[in-house]
């Protein structure tokens, strides 16, 4: 079997799985820190209990995030050795800084926080969880500095012998405009993920009438504000990112919209069944002018189509197929935006209940809010699938193709890859079961279980 295919399959498996856990870490660490700060400032016991409760769920989730993160770091060398040789000069730097700046901070202060409840003054203890939250979100920044180079390379030149890209301008790498579009989107996605978990668990307790009604009302209040702000931010950030993408990676946008021909004004697809072989629609419902509006805030403006871009790239980069999997890009975009829309509705509904101080939930409204915690997971995963699959055939846009990046099959053969895929599938499957079991147990048990 083809090692390129297997290596991509493994990367998809391990990175999607890793990113199940990361956004919740980003969002829930800040939420826990807010609860503990409320305790330090008001002295009210319920805030301390809530900080411990959400902190417990954070920890169960964090452990899996950490161990799957190590796999990510190793994997660039294990499966993508030619990629590592080509971009190590640039890509390795943010990765090393991420460990040095963010991971040390996060893990050391998490240890201090977990074990320090009785050993540290209150304010110092609250500072520890803020440092954990800072570490988590700093790690997102640095890994996105690395990813942004793959999406939109800056601050480099090619080595004289053409063997690799070399960094020439570190500040350019850090202030890559792409970073500052992607980072707010990912962090807001994290807030949203955390916020929805808080809404879901709180609404469940309120619906079931468990013993911690007052604390979970408070929790729902903070959670719905948090999730609502998060969802608004993630939508706005996503919108600006899209406008940026049209300039940097028009092919990704065209694929996400199944836009075969250039259009001016360009239409937005509501539903398309396409034919990827012949690059045409079988069936499509499109809103005229809407894509131009999304792209340029105006109902006029050309958005280039897949066919025109393919020709453009052949002229620029030589013969080859520069069209990503349109069906993947198209549907991942729709899942992301669809989940985002539902999140706005769900967060608005929770906020409406909170503003009316109505904390009673029927079976229907409680269940709907409970299951809404899945929405951010759908959006997070499909967002990354779009970002990475929509960039194909490139691994580093315009510089290196994915097929050139994989470890040679003389070093890692298909058998070894099949073995590692099987191992990761089994281990990750088991981790999911255990993690869900524990999260469910602690979420349902309420405040006293975390004491």
């Amino acid at each position, binding site marked *: 079997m083809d090692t390129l295919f297997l290596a991509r399959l493994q990367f998809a498996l391990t990175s999607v799985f890793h990113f199940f856990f990361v956004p919740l870490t980003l969002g829930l660490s800040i939420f826990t820190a807010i609860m503990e700060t409320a305790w330090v400032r008001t002295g009210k016991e319920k805030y301390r209990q809530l900080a411990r409760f959400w902190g417990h769920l954070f920890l*169960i989730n964090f*452990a*899996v995030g*950490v*161990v*799957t993160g*190590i*796999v990510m*770091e*190793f994997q*660039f*060398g*294990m*499966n993508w*050795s*030619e990629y*590592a*040789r080509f971009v*190590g*000069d*640039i*890509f*390795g*730097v943010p*990765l*090393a*800084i*991420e*460990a*040095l700046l963010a*991971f*040390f*901070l996060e*893990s*050391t202060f*998490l*240890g*201090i926080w*977990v*074990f*320090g409840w*009785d050993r540290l003054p209150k304010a110092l203890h609250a500072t520890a969880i803020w440092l954990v939250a800072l570490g988590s979100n700093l790690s997102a920044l640095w890994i996105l500095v690395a990813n942004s180079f793959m999406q939109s390379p800056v601050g480099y030149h090619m080595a004289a012998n053409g063997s*690799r890209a*070399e*960094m020439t301008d570190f500040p350019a790498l850090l202030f890559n405009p792409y970073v500052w579009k992607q980072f707010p989107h990912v962090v807001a996605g994290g807030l949203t993920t955390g916020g929805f978990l808080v809404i879901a668990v709180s609404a469940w307790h309120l619906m079931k009438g468990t013993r911690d009604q007052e604390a979970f009302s408070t929790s729902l209040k903070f959670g719905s504000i948090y999730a609502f702000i998060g969802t608004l931010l993630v939508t706005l950030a996503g919108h600006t990112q899209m406008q940026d993408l049209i300039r940097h990676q028009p092919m990704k946008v065209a694929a996400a919209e199944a836009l075969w021909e250039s259009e001016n004004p360009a239409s937005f697809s509501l539903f398309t069944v396409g034919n990827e072989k012949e690059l045409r629609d079988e069936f499509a419902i499109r809103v005229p002018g809407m894509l131009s509006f999304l792209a340029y805030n105006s109902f006029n403006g050309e958005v280039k189509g897949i066919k025109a871009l393919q020709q453009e790239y052949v002229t620029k980069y030589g013969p080859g197929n520069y069209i990503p999997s349109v069906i993947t890009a198209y549907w991942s975009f729709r899942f992301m935006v669809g989940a985002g829309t539902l999140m706005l509705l769900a967060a608005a509904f929770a906020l409406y209940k909170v503003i009316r101080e109505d904390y009673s939930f029927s079976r229907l409204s409680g269940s709907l809010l409970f299951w809404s915690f899945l929405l951010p997971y759908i959006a997070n995963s499909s967002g990354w699938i779009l970002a990475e699959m929509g960039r194909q055939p490139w691994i580093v846009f315009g510089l290196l193709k994915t097929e050139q990046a994989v*470890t040679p099959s*003389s*070093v*890692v053969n298909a058998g*070894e890859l099949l*073995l*590692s895929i099987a*191992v990761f599938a089994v*281990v990750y499957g088991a*981790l999911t079961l*255990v993690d869900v*079991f*524990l999260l469910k*147990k*602690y979420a349902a048990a309420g405040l006293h279980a975390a004491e």
Partner: protein
Amino acid sequence: MDLQTIWFILVTVLFIGFFVLEGFDFGVGILLPFMGSEDNDRRTVINTIGPFWDGNEVWLITAGGAMFAAFPEWYATLFSGFYPALLLMLVALIARGVAFEFRSKHDNRTWRSFWDWCIFAGSAILALLWGVALSNFIRGVPIDSSMQYAGGFIDLLNPYALSCGLASLFIFTLHGAVFLTLKTTGELHDRAMGLARKLWAPATILSMIFAGYTYVATDLFQRLGVNPGAIPIFSVLALLSVIVMLKKNASGWAFAMTAVAIAFSTITIFLGLYPRVLVSSLNPDWSLTIYNASSSPYTLGIMTTVALVFVPLVLIYQGWSYWIFRQRLARDSKLEY
């Protein structure tokens, strides 16, 4: 000193941090089944490393990141070439990492003994594999003229590397036992002290066998000379002195000595490597060195600045966390894990 040498030293420092710190929590994990079968004993043992193990592991992640950034060819050849070994290492890291967090979260005997087993096996596999990996750097592995690994998994499991694996397994276990004597009281302390005293002899003998084998199997002593210099000698002396400290119940000193032994052995291996980073067993000219494997001077310069600012900062706050949790744990202490 050139930037490549500075980064070779920094990578060595990161590995020392990893082996000295994570080394004792490997040891504690390995000793878990031998420190008592009651749940409270086991919880106390795990809690001695509770606040630290995750931060200790970041030394490995940072070392990996630093290799990637400073010596991309080393990172690429090593991680792709040692594929099955690293897969095993990853599974072990995953199993023991989540086990610490999950174990106490559910009160059921089968559940807890399953995670105990993960902690033990994960720690033991890692303690062994790191010795195997490091000794292969210096012994040499099949690397071809284009820097690609040309061997299989079996090439890594040679007798020399296995001798180093056994030595590192026992040294880390001893290091963990001595750490436990520092962090526990009463019966647990006595058990840890008994284990440490018993472990000293095999750990020392296996280390000496490995040292002797190094003389035969690698060019380390040809390079360093018959008198290898102060660092290897201090490493041996430190290890020999551990039993004296243990007999005097001077746990603090014994711990300092196992730490010195581990740190100085690591330095010895890296000294023997320098300026190579991965020796080719096929042709000495095909070895990876700090010059043919390194990043550009610009990148190394940026990384040097970052490291000089943040490594000391990390040392300060990690040191502070060890200070906060300096007390010994008794069986009736309040336990988080």
